[in-house]
């Protein structure tokens, strides 16, 4: 089998490549000739999709890290601490934890990069001797980023073969139905189309993180205040008391002294900024992401695909989504097409039957078609089915025993049609792409010779074939969108009937496609054939020229009818959409489909609801805006076409447009391009800077949208992995979005915010006591004693049960806004920290006021007090963490009691084993016994945390009794074993009844010339020209003949080339 075989003929152009005029710089590749003249060195095939290399790791990593404000801050502190005599703490109390944290982050980065790097390996190269003798040249386009175009010419033995995108394998292609292909490398490394297309992945940060950075600045202000206040106070004291305090040396005021005190205070108080927060968050998020991946409820056992969190930095963002932008085909629908009926020569097979609620059910017409086709009486039906069987690019795949395995098609629409035809007795038996098609009709073989093929493009919206029928007549087979077919008809015969039927199909949500046929005299074909071959061999303008030839062929057609294909909704889509709407999320659908189909899908997936006022925007928007005002009490929904959208992209009307859109409960954008998809997301982001957007899609055309939105979700579907690769989270089904948002999102938002608040709080609590005292600080506080507590909170806490999160989507609204994490909340938490530190300070002050704290009359000093304050703070903070837990798992106990235990163990170790280590270790010798041996410690241990947390507990009890949030209410119901729906949601519980559907008013909107727009745009609109990497390898299966491979690498762009023997 050789796709180019038919080109071997005298009519082929024989011009030498060097004579060809080059309007642009061509790429010439010589086959097997390393010594060829004018040989150009192409780029190396090495590419790096990783963030770091061995060489650049440290510089790049350090740069990235120190760009983060907190890291730079701590680095500065660590440097300042190196000045001798300045630091009130040790010299390494910041440097060591910072190094540990950096090291941990570095390990994490390396691991993540490692995972990123592990691409499928290149297969074993086969080295056949035959290929070595092959001589020739390939002339093609210079490298560009357009994955939808490739043109070139292959010269073998002075014969020129056109090559196009069909022969090109992109980088990253997976071979599916063949063990190898023979190829020629055209683009390498960074020149490959895929690499040219790859944009640097946008750095996404969550809203919580962005806000936290602002609060970090607030903390710096507090730090500045503390530092200045303390410094000034020191100056005042030194000037007033200093001269008389003979026991203190060097106690005079100078500029140098002022500077030294300033730096000292700065170093001392810097600890109110939690050094461990960043790393706690990072690792916490890894766990959260891991749990997302492990969720069995988001695992699709049929496809064997689990959810994947490709980034861990957006986990909490999932809890705040306000807008979902969804693709339609493959995302809301299964992208698996089922033939449901047709209209042939004015007769409708199958019918849209009203089910009594103005909704239509489609009764399949397949059976009636089958029985009629079996009779063989209907000539039109015969033609119709012949076209379905012949006019496509589907290839039948057979096993070694010649049994049909499957039809391999690049678009699901095409295979649906071919399968349908087979079902009706018209079996596509054999096909040689550009040569012939053999159809088996009721046991009889019919051979159609393919003379010309004009493939589907989104501009042409149709596909045509010129074939020589078994009876010798030359005919043009054409299928495509109604708009393009109707204008090429010989007569308006059947147009009105067909239109009528097609509108019924569309009502039932089916995709339609017109079928037409034309006759062509031999003489005309002879003339056009030359033109056709010339066009095919033109490198630069092949498509345009072919389109011109097609125009000449595709006229005087005779309409046969139209097909109706159903694109089934994915499982659970309406329910999921309903719940997401309940959760307060607005869902916009952005699709390439046409308006009617989009509206239909809108209804069937409950995005559009009976009580909504649905309007299609084609007229003046402001007009429409008035319309909203006039229809009070109805929720508006907008359906807009890509054309109107491009009009709305003008800055002058954009605001107005977005205003209108935002007033609508839902917006459906149809016939939009990938760029427009991302534009819509951008408009919303710009108009509502605080809103969090999520885009979900499955195809390459969704990638811009996925990258533009705050959170990108890719579905691993039939359209390859491009969307999933560009996404932040990838799922296998749309319905999994519900758990991702309502459970993981809500939980993680709760966790991350509480951890941030708690981390700041705990540092305030301990280190503001240093503001009260000049107390020695222990940098270990952050990492070992209270480090695990926020971690446990951030990984294992569950703010509500999964069941109720899923059952009551309303709970999601709580996390959506910033009610739970905003400046006020942050400030109150910090104030609480100050309050707790004051309680601890005052109590300890009272306790040690005399200094005689032991039962044996001995006195204690500064370090005893420091240890005491510290121990009490560790315990108070640990218990506060416990108070913030909504679910105490074993991990929580481990973290809270473990953290406190860690401190006690540390105290024992440090007061016994390093008496001569210097620094604070030498000072605290024997402090374990001093502390545990004093009744004072135990007294304070009982009293102070209880006193400090009294306010917290009482306030919580008050809130949960008198100002409950919905989540708390449901949680309480859960505990009291009541069903929340019977109590809480009673008043609002309302089923969507048949009656409600009947009451629905007629949907307003575009009424004019709908007929002209009915009918679908063709087999490949939706599948489009997305880079179907996986699919492209399909046809290669049959191409894999006895030859073997010359391809150099498995991961480079390759040209599929065949050799005949």
């Amino acid at each position, binding site marked *: 089998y050789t796709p180019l075989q038919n080109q071997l003929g005298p009519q082929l152009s024989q011009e030498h490549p060097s004579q060809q005029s080059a309007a642009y710089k061509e790429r010439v590749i010589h086959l097997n000739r390393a010594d060829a003249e004018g040989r150009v060195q192409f780029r190396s095939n090495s590419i790096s999709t990783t963030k770091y290399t061995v060489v650049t790791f440290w510089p790049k990593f350090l740069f990235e890290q120190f760009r983060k404000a907190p890291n730079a801050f701590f680095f500065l502190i660590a440097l300042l601490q190196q000045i001798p005599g300045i630091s009130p703490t040790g010299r390494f109390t910041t440097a060591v934890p910072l190094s540990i944290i950096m090291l941990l982050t570095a390990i994490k980065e390396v691991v993540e990069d490692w995972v990123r790097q592990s691409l499928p390996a290149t297969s074993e190269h086969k080295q056949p001797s035959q290929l070595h003798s092959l001589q020739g040249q390939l002339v093609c386009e210079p490298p560009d980023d357009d994955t939808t175009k490739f043109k070139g010419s292959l010269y073998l033995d002075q014969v020129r073969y056109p090559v196009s995108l069909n022969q090109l394998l992109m980088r990253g292609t997976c071979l599916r139905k063949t063990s190898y292909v023979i190829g020629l490398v055209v683009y390498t490394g960074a020149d490959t189309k895929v690499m040219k297309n790859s944009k640097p992945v946008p750095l996404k940060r969550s809203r919580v993180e962005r806000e936290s950075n602002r609060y970090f600045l607030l903390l710096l202000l507090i730090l500045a205040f503390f530092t200045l206040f303390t410094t000034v106070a020191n100056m005042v004291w030194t000037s007033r008391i200093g001269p008389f305090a003979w026991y*203190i040396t*060097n106690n005079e005021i100078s500029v140098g002294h002022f500077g030294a005190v300033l730096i000292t205070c700065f170093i001392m108080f810097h600890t109110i900024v939690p050094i461990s927060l960043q790393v706690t968050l990072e690792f916490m998020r890894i766990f959260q992401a891991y749990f997302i991946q*492990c969720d069995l409820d988001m695992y699709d056992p049929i496809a064997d695909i689990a959810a994947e969190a490709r980034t861990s930095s957006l986990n909490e963002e999932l809890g705040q989504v306000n807008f979902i932008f969804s693709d339609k085909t493959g995302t809301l629908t299964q992208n698996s097409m089922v033939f449901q009926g047709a209209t042939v020569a004015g007769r409708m097979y199958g019918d849209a039957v009203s089910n009594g609620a103005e909704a239509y059910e489609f009764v399949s017409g397949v059976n009636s078609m089958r029985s009629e086709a079996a009779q063989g009486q209907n000539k039109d039906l015969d033609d119709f089915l012949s076209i379905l069987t012949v006019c496509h690019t589907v290839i039948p795949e057979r096993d070694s025993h010649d049994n049909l395995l499957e039809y391999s098609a690049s678009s699901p629409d095409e295979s649906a049609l071919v399968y349908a035809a087979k079902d009706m007795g018209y079996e596509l038996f054999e096909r040689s792409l550009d040569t012939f098609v053999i159809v088996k009709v009721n046991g009889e073989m019919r051979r159609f010779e393919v003379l010309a093929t004009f493939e589907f493009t989104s501009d042409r919206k149709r596909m045509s074939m010129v074939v020589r029928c078994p009876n010798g007549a030359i005919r043009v087979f054409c299928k495509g969108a109604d708009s393009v077919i109707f204008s090429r008809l010989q007569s308006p015969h059947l147009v009105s009937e067909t239109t009528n039927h097609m509108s019924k199909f569309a009502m039932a949500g089916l995709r339609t496609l017109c079928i037409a046929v034309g006759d062509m005299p031999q003489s005309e074909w002879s003339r056009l054939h030359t033109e056709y071959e010339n066009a095919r061999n033109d490198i630069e303008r092949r498509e345009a020229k072919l389109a011109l030839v097609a125009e000449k062929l595709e006229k005087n057609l005779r309409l046969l009818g139209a097909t109706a294909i159903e694109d089934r909704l994915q499982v659970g889509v309406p329910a999921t959409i309903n719940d997401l709407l309940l959760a307060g999320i607005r869902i916009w659908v952005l699709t390439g489909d046409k308006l009617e189909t989009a509206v239909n899908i809108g209804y069937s997936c409950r995005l559009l609801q009976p009580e909504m006022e649905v309007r299609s925007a084609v007229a003046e928007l402001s007009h429409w805006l008035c319309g909203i005002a006039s229809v009070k009490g109805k929720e508006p929904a907008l359906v807009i076409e890509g054309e109107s959208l491009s009009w709305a992209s003008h800055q002058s009307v954009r605001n107005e447009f977005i205003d209108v859109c935002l007033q609508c409960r839902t917006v459906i954008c149809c016939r939009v391009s990938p760029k427009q998809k991302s534009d819509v997301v951008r408009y919303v982001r710009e108009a509502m800077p605080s809103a969090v957007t999520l885009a979900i899609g499955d195809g390459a055309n969704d990638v811009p949208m996925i990258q533009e939105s705050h959170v990108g979700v890719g579905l691993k579907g039939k359209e390859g992995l491009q969307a999933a690769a560009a996404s932040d989270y990838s799922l296998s089904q749309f319905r999994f979005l519900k758990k991702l948002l309502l459970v993981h999102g809500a939980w993680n938002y709760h966790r991350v915010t509480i951890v941030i608040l708690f981390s700041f709080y705990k540092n305030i609590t301990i280190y503001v006591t240093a503001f009260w005292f000049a107390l020695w600080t222990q940098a270990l506080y952050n990492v070992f004693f209270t480090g695990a507590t926020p971690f446990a909170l951030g990984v294992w806490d569950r703010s509500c049960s999964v069941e109720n999160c899923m059952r009551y989507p309303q709970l999601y609204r709580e996390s959506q806004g910033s009610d739970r994490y905003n400046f006020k909340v942050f400030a109150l938490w910090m104030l609480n920290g100050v309050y707790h530190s004051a309680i601890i300070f005052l109590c300890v002050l009272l*306790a040690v006021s005399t200094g005689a704290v032991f039962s044996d009359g001995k006195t204690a000093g500064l370090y005893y007090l420091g240890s005491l304050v510290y121990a009490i703070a560790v315990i108070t903070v640990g218990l506060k963490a416990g108070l913030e837990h909504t679910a105490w798992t074993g991990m929580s106990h481990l973290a809270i009691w473990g953290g406190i235990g860690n401190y006690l163990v540390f105290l024992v170790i440090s007061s016994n084993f390093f*008496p001569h280590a210097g620094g604070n270790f030498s000072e605290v010798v024997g402090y374990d016994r001093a502390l545990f041996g004093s009744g004072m410690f135990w007294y304070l241990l009982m009293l102070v945390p209880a006193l400090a947390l*009294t306010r917290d507990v009482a306030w919580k009890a008050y809130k949960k009794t*008198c100002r409950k949030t919905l989540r708390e209410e449901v949680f309480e119901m859960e505990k009291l074993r009541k069903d929340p729906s019977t109590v809480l949601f009673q008043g609002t519980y309302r089923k969507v009844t048949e009656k409600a559907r009947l009451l629905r008013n007629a949907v307003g909107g575009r009424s004019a010339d709908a007929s002209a727009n009915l009918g679908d745009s063709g087999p490949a609109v939706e599948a489009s020209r997305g880079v179907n990497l996986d699919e492209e390898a399909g046809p290669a299966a049959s191409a894999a003949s006895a030859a073997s491979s010359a391809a150099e690498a498995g991961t480079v762009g390759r040209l599929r080339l065949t050799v005949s023997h």
Partner: protein
Amino acid sequence: MLEPVEDSQAVVRPEDDDNIDDEDLEGANNSAAAGAGNASGATSNRPPSSAFHQQKLPAWQPLLTAGTVFPVFLIMSIAFICLGVALLLANSNISELSIDYTDCKRIGDRTPCANLVKKPEFYYNYSVCQCRLEFKLDKPMTGQVYAYYALTNFHQNHRKYVKSHDRMQLSGRRYSDLDAECEPYRTSADGKWIAPCGAVANSLFNDTFKLMRRVGSLETVPWTVKGISWSADVARKYGRVDTWNGTAKPPNWAVPESARSPIGYTGDEELQVWMTVAALPTFRKLHRRLIHSDISAYAEGLPAGNYSLLVNYSYPVAGFGGTKSFVLATAGLLGGRNAGLGGLAIAVGCLHLALCCALAVLHTHAKRNRETDPYYGMDPLHRALLENTPTGASSADTASEDGDVSVVARRPRTT
């Protein structure tokens, strides 16, 4: 009390919660079936199903409403009030007598010692200012009696002061090349290493006392310097010194350390107590422990009666506005006399009691109101959310209607 309930059992399970999966996936999504299918060997991406991986670890979820919290407060208030009363009772058994001798006058010429003792150098340039204080002990002090000195307005916690010592020197592991923090008391004028170096040691409290009881004549009350410092200090923190060669005494000292304690710092408990720097500018340090076994009169403690305290006044505090006191005290479980400790416990107990009452009222009030208004006690914003939800029913309740959703398509518009 808070109700410890295992999470997994406490949940009210909606019966049709999983209907999306069960109905629509034609059973294929049934995890058991999938598990069986995958068990046949092929590699699967199926995530592990443990409770850990599915975030279903058993958990204790305390419910902190007024109803559950007020009993907790009640119990705690009772406990703290009891503790407070006990502490106050114990505190009343602790005796304490403090004598401020800052302004005491020299024996003989009645010159205020504070006027004479102005500089720390005073006591080796001049003779010590000796003064005597008479006091009466109304009630006997029972139990072990301790003698303290107390200073006010003395900032032993000043950062520079605290740092000005060399731990290695004090532990006996270093003789020379002392810590630079000791400056300017690191080396003497003739280049010898000061032992012990630094400002803390140099400013060692050097008043000495003699306590006498008037029993006809004056009888010296026996006391000891042993056991005033922490045992860990004597045993480990302060070490022996093998040789005093090449060392000099701190400038303010009258005698070198070798004279105070020939074996080294471990034997100088007074120094150890002093070097355990105080946390606050007002502090007390243990000076002597009374010996109760030698003379029978002191076996029970310090008897009531008249006493005379002879002070060798040489430590200047008047310059910075400080005071000096001599304190005699016994100790309880929590150290010295401190009524604040019991008071604080009682105060916390009372606070908890008040909160307990308030929450109990709140609880009964809320309980009554909830009978008529199921939304009572909800945040107004959330309440509004609940009442204005467009379609209250979630998919769990309505999805079943659609059955096979793919067949149902609704009419988009009327033509």
